């Protein structure tokens, strides 16, 4: 408490804010010890009684923590007792909420890494059956097909997304509300509906399944993400910049094209990357538009083409041990791609703010 009354000659020193509700070191360590004890206790319960598995352990831990909290709060008033219980509930809800995707990360890495051999990234499945050993065949054709479709989709979507971002932030016309509304509701179009749409139009028109059709379906799904991110990024451009440009005599088109857009170049990259990350794992639309293929296809109009999601999906349906293992490895590659895209997006997007 003594830090609050600072000596007169040192008035410029700002006193540290005090947080009286903050637990002291002692209560913290007591809490940790109690929590560790509850962990052991619940492990013992799992070993000694009928409860079993991770779910049994979780349940036992929850009950033990509730009992411990009750005992520890016997002497406190009603308010802080309630606070403690809510804390336990919130923490357990969080654990339950985070458990699935942590388990997914873990199992994809653990099970996928076995098949991640050099051949997986360079060979295709043309002369390999899914049931063959993991050192034969690979998913290179699927990776290339995915890349091809996603790049075409990005090339279509990026200009459109940027245009609608520019419309929402620079032009601000009468349709601003409507455009924003449509973009938001479009982001909820089910992926299979996008696939059906492209099937009834493009596939029907060209009368064959192709990578181009897949790319168009992905573009439909990608557009809202890109448009929204582009709008968010363009909103960050300070109005002073626009005013300065106008004051120098620039017209609106020059201001937008030569001042505003170059300022957020890396932010727009982020928009594109996030859009790609959104669609790279989409399976359903590709099942209706690009189908799958076991060999290399480089021509987007040259008939069915392989892709990572359909590769994994196909293997899953075969369901033998080796094919499931291949599916895990395919998922690992997919997850790594998403991770790399996200990290790049963060890295690139972080540049703008400096």
């Amino acid at each position: 408490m003594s830090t609050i009354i600072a000596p007169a000659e040192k008035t410029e020193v700002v006193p540290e804010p005090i947080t009286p509700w903050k637990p002291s070191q002692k209560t913290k360590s007591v809490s940790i010890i109690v929590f560790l004890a509850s962990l052991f206790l619940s492990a013992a319960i799992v070993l000694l009684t009928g409860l079993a598995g991770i779910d049994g352990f979780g349940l036992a831990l929850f009950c033990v923590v509730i009992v411990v909290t009750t005992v520890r709060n016997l002497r406190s008033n009603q308010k802080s007792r309630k606070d403690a219980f809510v804390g336990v509930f919130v923490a357990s809800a969080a654990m339950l909420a985070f458990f699935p995707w942590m388990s997914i990360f873990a199992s994809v890495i653990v099970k996928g890494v076995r098949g991640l051999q050099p051949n997986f990234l360079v060979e295709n499945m043309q002369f390999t059956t899914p049931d063959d050993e993991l050192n034969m065949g690979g998913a290179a054709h699927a990776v290339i097909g995915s890349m091809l479709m996603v790049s075409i989709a990005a090339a279509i979507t990026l200009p459109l997304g940027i245009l609608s971002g520019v419309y929402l932030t620079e032009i601000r016309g009468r349709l601003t509300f409507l455009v924003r509304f449509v973009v938001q509701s479009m982001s909820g179009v089910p992926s299979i509906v996008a696939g059906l749409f492209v099937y009834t139009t493009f596939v029907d028109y060209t009368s064959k399944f192709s990578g181009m059709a897949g790319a168009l379906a992905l573009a439909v799904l990608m557009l809202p993400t890109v448009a929204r991110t582009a709008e968010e990024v363009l909103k960050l451009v300070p109005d002073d910049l626009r005013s300065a440009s106008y004051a120098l005599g620039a017209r609106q088109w020059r201001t937008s094209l030569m001042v505003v857009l170059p300022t957020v170049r890396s932010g727009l990259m982020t928009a594109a990357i996030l859009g790609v990350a959104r669609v790279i794992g989409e399976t359903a639309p590709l099942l209706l538009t690009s189908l799958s293929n076991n060999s290399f296809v480089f021509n987007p109009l040259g008939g069915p083409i392989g892709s990572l999601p359909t590769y994994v999906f196909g293997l899953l349906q075969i369901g033998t041990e080796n094919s499931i293992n291949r599916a895990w490895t395919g998922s690992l590659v997919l997850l790594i791609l998403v991770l790399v895209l996200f990290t790049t997006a963060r890295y690139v997007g972080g540049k703008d703010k400096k």
Partner: protein
Amino acid sequence: MSISPGLQATPEARELSVIFNRADRIFRRIVTAGALTSLILLGLIGTFLFVRSAQIFNDRGLKFITGSNWTAGSGDGVIPDDFSIGPMLTGTLLVSLIALVLSMPLAIGGALFVEFYATPGLKKVLTTLLDLAAAIPSLIFGLWGVVFFSSYGERWSDLLNSRFGWLPLMEVQNEVFGRSPFVAGCVLASLITPIITSVSREVFSRTPRDLVDTCYALGSTRWGAIKTVVLPFGKSGVIGGAMLGLGRALGETVAVYLLLNIVFRYNFRILESEGGNIASLIALKFGEATEYELKALVAAGFVLFLLTLVVNIVAASIVERSTRHR
């Protein structure tokens, strides 16, 4: 002597006017056209799906929605075509509702934990991971569900059935607990939880810091501050996030396809190993569909499109309203 009153008055602000020249007008027209593509695209999706399936709605009318069969005819008219999506429609709603009910408390708890309980370092890590988790492809959720989760799901179903089997919701006819709406709903719940958590956390983080600090200054506990300030403030945002999650669950294809036993029968017993979902119906029947059946599938897609569109429009307007009030 004072200055004359005329000088004291501030001059009226000059009205700003913009005159667009031809280059500007062209630029504005191009940008507007670009922005309108999403509107046109949405319209095209609706129109094309409707036009291509009009024959089905014409032939079958309301029976397409209420009927419960999906039988391809024999072609010579002995067995007539009979396509309707009743059980799939109710199945879609059932599975999505299970997912929503399970994920809401978890998502709110998770968002509160990240925003108000976690230490600053943990908060940073969890926020990043959360964004990443919301981007895990649903296919991987399906794979995880089939290989990892389904055994737990079966165990929980068995447990629920033996304790609460007297409830109509929980009874079963066959004691096979896998591939039920409950199991699919659990996996869908884990799929939409990161999305709802992400949106809720975002909304909670926008709570004015002053208000929360005021609560603490008045002697409130952490729960007191959350109950009186954070939750009322973030309510509509959380509802909007939940609707987004619901929209995602309604349109989910592969995860449900892999985890649900698709049977054409009305089923509201959530532990029974049968159910349906429009999106997975399309994926299931698409491969070997006849021309007429394809039209029926497109019609099913159109119904799904309308359903998710309504949910998303409601969600968008709720989110819009909650952000405009600030």
